[in-house]
């Protein structure tokens, strides 16, 4: 059962993401409201996909990403970052830091779902080239 981690400081957005991904039949969800909680979740068990908001208090999403990518076990986990309109700088930095894909808020649920599906399928299939 693949575990999907949703990281965003807005509880409303976390709910929306979860709802968008509900059609993924066998997925399990975990949520985190900030970077430290996200890292804790990852530490507690394997995660198949991370939806990561960038602009969070305390620890910026990019820093979370950098931490992940630095460490052996998590360097391959697919990460979709959520960026805000007008904040292209963060988006670029995130991609450079190792984000797999980005989505700009407000996003359409189908788009997020499609991304998630394809990323999960890839992982199941094997390491990305």
């Amino acid at each position, binding site marked *: 059962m693949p575990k999907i981690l949703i990281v965003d*400081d*807005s*509880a*409303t*957005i976390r*709910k*929306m993401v979860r*709802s*968008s991904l509900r059609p993924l039949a066998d997925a399990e969800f975990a949520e985190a*409201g*900030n*970077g*430290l*909680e996200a*890292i*804790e979740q*990852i*530490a*507690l068990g394997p995660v198949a996909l991370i939806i990561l908001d960038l*602009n969070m*208090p*305390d*620890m910026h999403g990019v*820093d*979370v990403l*950098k*931490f992940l990518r630095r*460490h*052996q*076990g998590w360097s391959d986990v697919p990460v979709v970052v959520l960026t*805000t*309109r*007008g904040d292209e700088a963060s988006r670029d930095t995130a991609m450079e830091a190792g984000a797999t894909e980005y989505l700009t*808020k*407000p*996003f*359409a*649920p189908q788009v997020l779902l499609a991304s998630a599906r394809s990323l999960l399928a890839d992982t199941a299939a094997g390491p990305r080239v």
Partner: protein
Amino acid sequence: MTVDNGNPFSDFLDDYFAECDDHLMGVRRLLLTLESSVGRSEINRSALDELFRHFHSLKGISGMVELRAAEDLAHSLEDYLRALRQREATLTAQGVDALFDGAQILEQVIGARRDGTQPPSIDGAVAQIRRVLIDAAADRAAAAPSADTLSTAATARATQPRWRCTFSPSADLVARGVRVDSVRKRLATAGEILNAVPRVTRDGAVMFEFELAAALDEATLAAWRADGIIAEPMGDAEMSDAGNGRATPAGLPELLPSIDAEPGQAGGVSPSHFVRVDLTRLDELMRNVGDLVISRARLSETLGRLERRIPSAEWRAIQENAVAIDRQLRTLREGIMRVRLVPVGEIFRRMPFVVRDLARETGKRVRLELQGQSTEIDKFLIERMMDPVLHLVRNAVSHGIETAEERIAAGKRPEGTIVLSAATAGDLVRIEVADDGRGVDADAVVARATEAGLPVPQGTLDASHLLSLLCAPGFSTRDESDRASGRGVGMGVVQAAVEELSGSLSLETTPGAGTRFTLELPVTLAITDALIATVGGETFAVPQGAVREVMEVPASGLLQVERNEMTPYRGGALPIVRLGRLFGLPDSTRERLHVFVVGTGAAALGIAVDRIVGQREIVVRAIADALVRVEGISGATDLGDGNVVLILDPAVLARHMRERPDRVFAATGASR
């Protein structure tokens, strides 16, 4: 209630509104703090950062629900905050006004979406911000920017000893509820977190390292150790290292000093120390506890019958247990009631804005002092008290406080003061709105009352008489078009709202010196589920928890056994008591009786009524006076028409029936 406009996330509107409320609350608080920074060389950086974050979040979630106006306005406000943070603009009075006005329009836009009404246009607010930014750019071009000194609350507390606190998450700790978030909150309560860094240890485990400035005692250290938090003192030579994705100290939520006159409160309780709880869950909890209480009473009855058969030493032991359970139940019940309590500050928080706006409109100078915001009151009451308190505060500004000139002429300070305070006194909450204005003019009140055709007692009136006149129907505020007094809501509505909640309103006033309105409300409200039944034309309520079952029984099918009526029930027979006969009411002529069964086993009893009309949630009002305190009646309620409906205590009735079947409750003949 929310309208679906095809947005895929329209189901989340309730969450959206709730989250907006949180953010807007933060915005209001921070704007007031920021206002005091205008013209000073230091700006509260952390307030700026937090404010920026709020607008940023509001922008984000508004975009998701496609509330474009809110998104755009939040974006504008965010722009100004960004400029301030990046020192491209300085904080001016004009800028603060733009932020206040913008925040208010934003709130109205969101509120309009919630209520389905027409939202105001955001154009004015957006233009206002743009002007401020343009002026700021011009200023910047004209003069060399001066470096503003950083002022965070951090510097104040940096003198405390530093600790390195580490914590490694694990499944065991999670099972006990210990997670990095709760750990961080505990550390923040104990002191100030200067830094927070995630690390990976040599064996590949994740560890969180916090740099904490705090004074820690052995007890705290031990408690933390038990939950996996290891704290070691840091030497002066050690510095938190750079890189590795560390958290920025300025980004951590700062506890801003509260704006009221309560020095002890500043930076007291962290807002993140609380959880948001759905009120319906609390209501359910209360019901469960209510059931527990009733079960306990039943147990007591059953045990009572065994007393004769048990050796007295054992009986005493049982009694002790019973008493202990009683005590614990009471504590539990009170505890749950207290969970419904919410700080009165929720009502108070928007008052500074109201006063500020109204003072500006009426050209008066008014200062609002808030006291006792942490005083707690039932959530049910909070919502109903908002308007009355608002009305009193508005009144104080528009009718109480004089203009600056008048005040100076009277030898007072030109600025008037309104004190809004809350405090508990036993099981009452007292909310006071006091001003140092002109006081209530008794002659004017009498004149207005006479003009309105209201009966006026002779002679000099005391404050309570004045209040009665002010609240009498027909005594509306002088100037109907005086919207400053609250859209024509008279004092009568305030009094009615207060009294409906079993509270009271009183007035003290001294002409020339000031006025004080005092609201007293009970701290908690007893609410329970009840079955509503009619008997002989009267209506009664029966607490649901006492009822095991409800059934319909044919009157002709009742068996007479000696003096009792019985009905077949679960293979045996159930004694039936007609509630009407107990109360001296006429017997039902209906063929089918409705019966609710109370008690179990051999103690089961069926209480027959004419009809069980339905089930309602009722607010229990105490019957205080001895004249009407009667066995078998546990209280009274209002089903909505203003008439008293008595609440039965079936267990007592049942016991009464068993013990003294001959005695009928006497009827009192009241004429209708």
